[in-house]
């Protein structure tokens, strides 16, 4: 048998059952794993959010003790950020990047497998301490907020679980990013120059660089926590000459780029969707690329706007205020570009388009409150209240999450070969939209009126708005089961999708058959 024949035979061999998923090096299989993993985490983190909202339905403590409540807010944040949003974007990248740049697969398939299979172990390690206690209510999960500020986190008994979970998550993200960068820079079809790349590919390229830059910083922060706790160092312990504020500087040097890591790929997704359903080219492609790069750059030099109350010198506060409000400029450019793409188009409103438009509207509201928060004197009033909670949920739910769901709807027919049910898709969109706004809009008011965040119980004047938020949260939460049903139904069958799927489709992925073949482009397409 010749060398070539062996090679080909190997390619055609698809292990079945559990082995297919454990040993797969295929970008589509790994993309699927990432997406299902993130969906499970989304439901888990969502369930925790519902525990929070159920407890806050009325004043007084009815359901869970305060320590358990803090555990819920902490794990909800960590799971949504590291378990749901980030892996979902890597899942989308795995599926789409090779197809959008005309490549057969990712550049580093075995590392791809590894970067996924670390995740379930990391998530288990993060959540496990919750079940280590006499009874359920005295679970010992982390209860110091997703920002794990020292010295509070240093009081945590099971800190090592948390630290190593974060390390694993970091390994996974860094490997995923290296793979995406290697793929995009090396495997583009001939003629596909950087400035011809689809926006989704661009935003992911920039995101991957952000990840590689900041994940090691996070790893450093948790390692210092670990040695403070178990090896007698005093990086963050004032009693030993350390500095608790240093922790916050390090954390937010990671944390601020992190929030852009969670939003930039969503910008990419909606920059794909809107032109398709407006049947018009993306307005200002070049300025979109430059705006994304500027946002990424600015994200590194604004971190201390999360820390206006720690007592920085006035000059420091002024600098961070100016730098922060500057981000409004490139962000505004993006919003204007999307709005102008729709302007004088020929629009239809299939489910992906609804998600994209919903994102532009609601993310913009989150952007406005972001600007308000950036103005330091006013931030003293907003800081650590529900106003902040409202702000980042408008950005992360109706920005990142809506972008992900929009992307899944948009590409699902290409992945499965079947059309999803438009009726269910629209029902899911509208229920989510109503639930989301009912949950988070009133939080602006509770926050302005003075309710601090991460409170297990609250004074009576906040009762009405909290009740609205709780009702909204349950509508929002249970609506996601429609998504689960819709996706399973679409995988199982349905009206066959055409190769082009959408009338206004643009880009290489739509030149492949639906469902897309196992090895995307065996011969590179030619781009003119």
């Amino acid at each position, binding site marked *: 048998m010749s060398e070539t024949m062996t090679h080909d035979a190997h390619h055609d061999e698809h292990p079945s059952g559990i082995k297919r998923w454990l040993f797969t090096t295929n970008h589509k299989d790994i993309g699927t794993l990432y997406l299902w993993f993130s969906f499970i985490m989304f439901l888990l983190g969502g369930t925790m959010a519902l525990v929070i909202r159920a407890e806050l339905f*009325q*004043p*007084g*403590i009815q359901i869970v*003790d*305060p*320590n*358990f409540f*803090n555990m819920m807010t902490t794990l909800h944040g960590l799971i949504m950020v590291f378990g749901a949003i980030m892996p979902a974007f890597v899942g989308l990248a795995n599926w789409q990047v090779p197809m959008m740049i005309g490549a057969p697969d990712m550049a580093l398939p075995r590392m791809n497998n590894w970067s996924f299979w670390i995740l379930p172990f990391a998530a288990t390690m993060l959540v496990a301490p919750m079940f280590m*206690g006499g009874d359920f209510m005295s679970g010992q999960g982390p209860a110091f907020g997703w920002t794990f500020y020292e*010295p*509070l986190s240093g*009081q945590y008994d099971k800190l090592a679980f948390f630290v190593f979970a974060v390390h694993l998550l970091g390994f996974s993200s860094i490997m995923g990013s290296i793979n995406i960068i290697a793929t995009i820079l090396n495997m583009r079809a001939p003629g596909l120059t950087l400035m011809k790349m689809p926006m989704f590919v661009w935003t992911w390229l920039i995101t991957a660089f952000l990840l590689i830059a900041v994940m090691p910083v996070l790893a450093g922060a948790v390692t210092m926590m670990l040695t403070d706790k178990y090896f007698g160092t005093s990086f963050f312990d*004032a*009693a030993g000459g350390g*500095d*608790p504020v240093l922790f916050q500087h390090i954390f937010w040097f990671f944390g601020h780029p992190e929030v852009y890591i969670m939003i930039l790929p969503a910008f990419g997704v909606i920059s794909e969707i809107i032109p398709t359903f*407006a049947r018009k080219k*993306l307005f*200002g*492609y070049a300025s979109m690329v430059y705006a994304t790069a500027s946002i990424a750059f600015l994200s590194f030099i604004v971190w201390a706007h999360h820390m206006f*109350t*720690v*007592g920085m010198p006035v000059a420091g506060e002024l600098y961070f*205020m*100016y730098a922060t*409000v500057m981000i409004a*400029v490139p962000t*505004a*450019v993006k*919003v204007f570009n999307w*709005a102008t793409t729709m*302007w*004088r188009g*020929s*629009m239809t*409103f299939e489910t992906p388009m609804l998600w994209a*438009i919903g994102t*532009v*509207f609601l993310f*913009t509201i989150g952007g*406005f409150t972001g*600007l308000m928060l950036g*103005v330091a*004197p*006013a931030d*003293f*009033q907003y*800081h*650590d209240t529900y106003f902040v909670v409202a702000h980042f949920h408008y950005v992360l739910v109706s920005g990142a999450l809506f972008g992900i769901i929009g992307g899944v709807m948009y590409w699902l027919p290409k992945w499965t070969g079947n059309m999803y049910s438009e009726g269910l898709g629209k029902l899911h969109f509208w229920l989510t939209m109503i639930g989301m706004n009912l949950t988070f809009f009133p939080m602006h*008011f509770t926050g*302005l009126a*003075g309710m*601090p*965040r991460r409170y297990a119980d*609250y004074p*009576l004047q906040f*009762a*009405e708005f909290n009740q*609205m938020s709780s009702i909204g949260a349950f509508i929002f939460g249970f609506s996601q089961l429609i998504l689960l049903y819709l996706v399973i139904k679409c995988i199982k069958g349905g009206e066959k999708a055409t190769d082009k799927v959408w009338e206004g489709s643009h880009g290489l992925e739509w030149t492949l058959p639906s469902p897309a073949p196992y090895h995307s482009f065996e011969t590179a397409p030619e781009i003119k």
Partner: protein
Amino acid sequence: MSFKHNKIMTKGLVLMSLWLGAAGQSLAEYNLNFQEPVNDVGREIYDLHMLVFWICVVVGIGVFSMMIYSIIMHRKSKGAVSTDFHESAKVEVVWTIVPFIILIAVAIPATSTLIKIEDTSNADLTIKVTALQWKWKYDYGNGVSFISSLHPDHNKARRRNSGVDVTKIENYLLEVDNQLVLPINKKVRFLLTSDDVIHSFWVPQFAMKKDAIPGYVNETWTTIDKEGVYRGQCTELCGQDHAFMPIVVNAKNENDYNAWMDKQKTAAAASAAEAAADKVWSEADLVARGEAIYKGKGGCFGCHGANGEGVAIFPKLAGSPVANGPADKHIDVVLNGVAGSAMAAYSGQLNDLEIAAVITYERKSWGNNASIVQPADVKAAR
């Protein structure tokens, strides 16, 4: 303010419809917005907040109406045909520069307000505020200092399955045992620090918020315009009882403030004398005083339970080896805390008599039976 349950429901529904734009104006302005500020800086911050808010509203109306217009008019079902309008250097330059100019217009007033907020010079009065898990210690710097924690009635009511209808409690979670009393029309400077984790000191109507950080002394200030009681809460997650360490400021005119201060000074002198006296106390006296501290000022029951049964992950005292072992170890734990855990050092919070009393109470209650501790033992261990 006190609500009935069903009233909350009705109000909620009314608000919901208001929010959906269906009902009329029935809310006081400050329920949807900041609490009314009671100083100049607060009013300046409020104006700045409203300025940025209205800028956002105007820009939002512009962008959203353009989008809504195209959603309605430029749809395929209406026969709209797409154009090739996908680039315009002129438009793009304009919408980059205009936001930039708006931001400069915001940055100017913001800068002047910020400089004013951070100017803590020329204070008439300085209060040292020490945050503790989960209470505040106020020190006037003249021998008067006290710990302020959540009012005992509220503390009882807020427990899970307490059986108390919290909606019947006035100022639920916003009442303390010892209020911070301040004079009006004086520049009061706060020096903030913490004995354990990071907390944050916030009274919304004073429009100031500053973190209390171990190893740091942060400064902030306020001048209060009018007499009254102002309520705030801790705003940095500080552990399980983060929601239960309110700040209550009672602002009095100069005469009332001075009268209050004289009374405090006398009381402080008396209790210091009592603790310093080398008296040997009876077990019954120590237990009685200890119980009051355990369930009140000391806040011990927050973690260890009202009956020494422990709360969540925190250790129980009933039958514990420390409470039944040698007194030295027990004194050490209470005086110096336990490093790397939530157990605080009480050496700065309680005097010798108080520490002796609370330890004796713990060693003689809930089935524990160990030796009693006298103030002199604590003094020797310091």
